Structure formats: structure tokens, C-alpha cells
């Protein structure tokens, strides 16, 4: 049996294909974009090609993420909260708290035995999300991917006091005009993101092990800022973007086993690999 998880995030779409022994047969990451959302099937096809499998060989497909209801070929939709909890638990069995920072939201997740216990999510605000870094990259004329390395050189990080993405840009420009070194500004920025997210996740009582996921976890400066503020090490998966899709695939596998035990059909509907029809 083969299982797929497809995680359509606000910025990136991720697919993971697993076999019964939890071996990852395919792992695809591509931009979501305006058109890509209509083309979840293309990403799926790419994953199938990588796995060397046909669509018909998929036993269960679970969709998650912001665009989970736009996947007509999925058997079920599961929230990204449960999927991250499951995926991270497989990679880090001792994880208790997951902090996921994506393109448009930040989540705190408490997990036990692979199950979602409690969660918090940011409100309708870009501060403390990947968007905050994207906007800053534009302001500075840099690539967001460079931020982490540059900020690690900082010796005197500045305080970015404003928690609003728009006003923080003013502060950054002000610091630049005063001749403050870029690495110190970026270190301040990372510290501001960590502070903002931690204050939200604190509602859940942050217990180690803490695992950082989502695109922002790729930024070494942000990881360092989290460790400084929390006072202990945090763990980052090798590929922090795919934990949602991975969890979805595992949940698919587990549900298949459950259904088999109960003697129920595993896939309840006819699946067709096609794009979602929005109108009509």
C-alpha cells in the first residue's frame, strides 16, 4: 500500500509519498501561487513520477493546509495542526511543543504520542510570520534566504520594537539611516519574530522538546533567536517544510489500517486526478 499527503500552504505546496514501512518515496516542494492552487494535480503527478508509482496505486490521499478543500482527488481533509503534530512526532518522538511558522501564519502546537492536544494560531496579522521576512527582504533589496547567515555575524543586535510588519519597516529604514550594520538589524528582526511567536505560544506552556518547522525554520538566525529566548536548544527537521504533508501521509496510513481492521472500504469515493473546478 502507498500513501500520499498533500499540504497546500499559503506560499508552498508540499507532497510526500510513503510506503507501508514509512519510507519516503517522493517529496515535492513547489510554490502554491495563484495558478498552482488550481493545479494541485500537477504537483501530485510530479510526486508520482518521483515515486515511480501510478495514481491508482495510492491507497489513501489526505489533503491538508490552507488549500486542503481544493484537492478534488483527496480521500479526506485533515487540519494542518493534526498533520504537523503527527509528522513531527515521527521525526522527533520526544517532541512536546511544535512551533510552525509559515508564509502567512504562525502556530503553536502541543503534541503527545503523535496526537494534537492543543494549539494556538496567530490572528489576521503578518507580524511573526514568513511574510514579515519577505516584506523586509524587499525593503532591504536582499534575498530572504541570505538573512540567517548574515544575522549570525551580529555582535550588537538592535531592538525592533514594533510588532506591526508595516511599521517595523519604518524602524528598519531608520536604523539603516543611522548607519547601523545590516547584521545587527537582521538579528534584531529575528529576535522580534521569535519574541512575538513565543508570547503567543506561551499560552500553551512551552515544554521541551521544542521543534521548529515551516519555511521560517530554515533561517538559522531565527532558530538562534528562539534558543536564546527559550534558554534551551530547539530541533529543526532536515526539511522543515514537509512535516505537514508527511503527517498527512502517516495519518492516511493509520486510517487505512483502522478501516481494514473494521472491514470498511479504505477509500470511500472515486478519485480522479484533475484540477479543482471553482466555478460550477
Amino acid at each position, binding site marked *: 500500500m502507498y500513501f500520499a499527503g498533500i499540504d497546500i500552504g499559503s506560499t508552498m505546496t508540499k507532497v510526500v509519498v510513503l510506503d507501508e514501512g514509512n519510507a519516503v518515496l517522493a517529496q515535492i516542494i513547489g510554490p502554491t501561487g495563484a495558478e498552482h492552487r488550481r493545479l494541485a494535480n500537477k504537483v501530485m503527478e510530479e510526486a508520482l513520477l518521483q515515486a515511480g508509482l501510478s495514481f491508482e496505486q495510492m491507497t489513501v490521499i489526505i489533503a491538508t493546509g*490552507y488549500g486542503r478543500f481544493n484537492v478534488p482527488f483527496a480521500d479526506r481533509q485533515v487540519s*494542518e495542526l*493534526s498533520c504537523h503534530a503527527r509528522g513531527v512526532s515521527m521525526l522527533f518522538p520526544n517532541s512536546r511543543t511544535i512551533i510552525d511558522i509559515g508564509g502567512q501564519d504562525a502556530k503553536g502546537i502541543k503534541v503527545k504520542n503523535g496526537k494534537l492536544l492543543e*494549539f494556538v*494560531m496567530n490572528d489576521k496579522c503578518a507580524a511573526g510570520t514568513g511574510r514579515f521576512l519577505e516584506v523586509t527582504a524587499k525593503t532591504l533589496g536582499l534575498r530572504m534566504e541570505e538573512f540567517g547567515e548574515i544575522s549570525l555575524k551580529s555582535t550588537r543586535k538592535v531592538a525592533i520594537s514594533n510588532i506591526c510588519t508595516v511599521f517595523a519597516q519604518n524602524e528598519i529604514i531608520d536604523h539603516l539611516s543611522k548607519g547601523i550594520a545590516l547584521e545587527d538589524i537582521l538579528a534584531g528582526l529575528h529576535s522580534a519574530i521569535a519574541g512575538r511567536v513565543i508570547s503567543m505560544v506561551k499560552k500553551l506552556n512551552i515544554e521541551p522538546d521544542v521543534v521548529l518547522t515551516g519555511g521560517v525554520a530554515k533561517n538559522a538566525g531565527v532558530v538562534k533567536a528562539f534558543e536564546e529566548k527559550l534558554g534551551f536548544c530547539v530541533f529543526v527537521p532536515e526539511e522543515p517544510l514537509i512535516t505537514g504533508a508527511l503527517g498527512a501521509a502517516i495519518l492516511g496510513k493509520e486510517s487505512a489500517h483502522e478501516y481494514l481492521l473494521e472491514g470498511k472500504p479504505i477509500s470511500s469515493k472515486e478519485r480522479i486526478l484533475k484540477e479543482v473546478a471553482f466555478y460550477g
Partner: protein
Amino acid sequence: MSEHNLKGIAKAQKIYSDRSQRVKELKVAGAQILGYMCIYPVVEIISSFDLVPYRIFGSIEEPITKADNCLPTCVCPFLRSALDLGLKGKYDFLDGVVMAHPCEVAEKLAHIWRTYMDPVYSFYIDTPHATREAAIEYHKESLKDFQKSLEVFLGKGASSEKLKKTIEDYNEQRALVRELYDLKKPDPPLISGVETIEVLESLMSIPVKEGNELIRDVIEEIKERRGGPAKGARVLIWGSIIDSIAVVKLIEDLGANVVMDDTCVGSRFFFPDVETTGDPLDKLARRYLVDLKCPRTFIESGIEAGKKDYAEDLALRFGYLGDYVKQWNIKGVVLYALRFCDTHAYEVVSVKDYLSSLGIPSIYLEHDYSATSLSPLKTRVQAFLETLGY
């Protein structure tokens, strides 16, 4: 079936989709319609003068474009929306309005409405926020003033007998609503949360006696029908005004059943009766001030003892929620507040603490009162239901 033959739930759905249709018909036939905002303007007094009370709502579907000239944007989006509809002429059929003091913004809105909408008749009830005797006495005097102003407006005197009769009609409606809610106790419930809102909003859009007939038909219908709700997580929704089915539909579309509520479009408004013995104004003052459990009214324990105990305080303020949890077999609670609704947002921590003490999980959702911003709520609710094991 032609429109006029509609009965029960189909009729309620028709009224919900075009709330003012019935009162507009009545207006053509000579009736006068009095709009009221929130649950504190006493509907018994309105009806006792043969006026038809009509609850003013907003619309989560309609973008707010006109109200921003008269109200700041950082206040209750429901009230902004209601005023916006008014400014767009959607409430022009009203012969007057009566508003109260549920919160600061609504108080200001009462006056802003008067200024910008210029209704023929308007009255503002300065509802106190405490439940001690002096406050009840003050409230009773305010209700007397309300009665007097209607006497002047209509050129006819108030009748205590008529008021008592009207109270009985409303108490009958309340008993019927409680009976309807009893049919939400089985698993699965006999009526969905969405249908419940459609029925209750209909009651707030038509004369009381027509409403009683409607709800009787609904009760009869749901006892008989097949194809009601399927089993699912039994959820209670608590919070500020939910005047659209959208939020409850979102929860029920994810496989749960909203079997109980504590909102001012549901049990909060309809459950408490008015005592029928003694001075009706006094009993009305008590019912609206003491028995309506809205966070806008301040209640605390331990005044006599001179000390406050948090657990005791919570039990006094939210004990009724504990009863709901037991009687309706609630597995999880959705706490819903509109953005900028301080009145409810302040209460969230205490309600959560109380529910936790009962071992009931809850989730807090904040919404900006727009139909286009529901998908973040959907993710949260779905994840919450998953934590409940659904």
C-alpha cells in the same frame, strides 16, 4: 407548495432569507413596526401597544461602506454593519427604533442612529449594569419612561392588563423555544444548529402570536421527520451576537452538531420567563436585568462575605453553562467573539477557566464579521474537533 402554504422549517427558512417581508406586508395593512437593537429593549412593552417589534441585525455578507463616516472602524463590526444597512435604506420601513445600553458602542450608536437616520420615533433605555435592588428600581423607572414615550408617540394610554396578556404570549413563546431545545438533547439532535437560528431569527421578525404558531409547527415537524442531523461531536457555542447561520454552518459542515448555545440570538434571549404575578413593570425590569445572562451585566459573588473566591465566583456567573453541558451532553465549547467586542473578550478567560474546571475543552475564535474571512475559523474548528477525537 406555494409560498403562503409554507409551514414549519421551510417557512422559517423563507423568513430568514427575507426577514422584513412579513412586517412590510403588515405595514401595508396598517401596522406600525418598531425596530430594536440587542435583547434589552423590552419586546413585551412594544407589543403591548400593538406595535410589531423587529430585531435589527447586520449582514456579514454586505461590505461596510457607508457607516465608516459616522462610526470609528475600530469598534464592533456588527453595530457598524447594522448602521451601514440603515444608512443604505434597508431599515426605512421601520416606524421607529428603541435601543438600550448593552455596551458603550451600542449606547453611542443609539444616538448616532437618531442623528443620521432621523427616525420619527426613537427611545434609548439606559439599562443599568448591576443587579442590586437600586439598579432594578432604576431600570423599572426607565421602562416607565419608555412606556410614557410610546403613549405620547401613539396618542394612547398604556394598559396594565394588555401588558400582562402580552407577557403571557411571550412566556408561551419561551416555553416553546425551551421545548424545541429539549429536542436537541437526543443524539443525534432532532434539529440542527443552523435550523435553530433560522427559526429563532424568524421569531424576532414577526408578531409574537404568529411566531408561536410557527414554532409549534416546527416542533411537530421535527418530531416526525426523517433525515434530520446525523451524529457528530456535540458542541455548545458561546459568544457575542451570531445573526448569520454562517458560523454555525461552518461548524456543522465539519461534522459536528451545535446542540446548545449561549448567545443573544439563542437561549440567552429566549430561556428566561417573566414572572406573571405582581407589578408587570417590576417583573420585566428583573427579568431583563437579572435573568438575562449577558456579560454586559456585572455579577459577582462574595459581596456579603467581604472576600472573593474565584471558583465560587465562576460557579455563580457561569453555573448555568455547567447545567447546559450536563443536560445537552456537551463535548466541546466554541467561544466566539466579534473583533472589538470587549464585553465578550474580557469574559473569555473566565468562561474558559470555568469550563476547564468541568473538564470541558474549549476553543476561542475571533471573527471580524465578514463572510469572506471564515476560512481561518474553519481550520481552527476542524483542528479543535480533531482534538476531541472526531
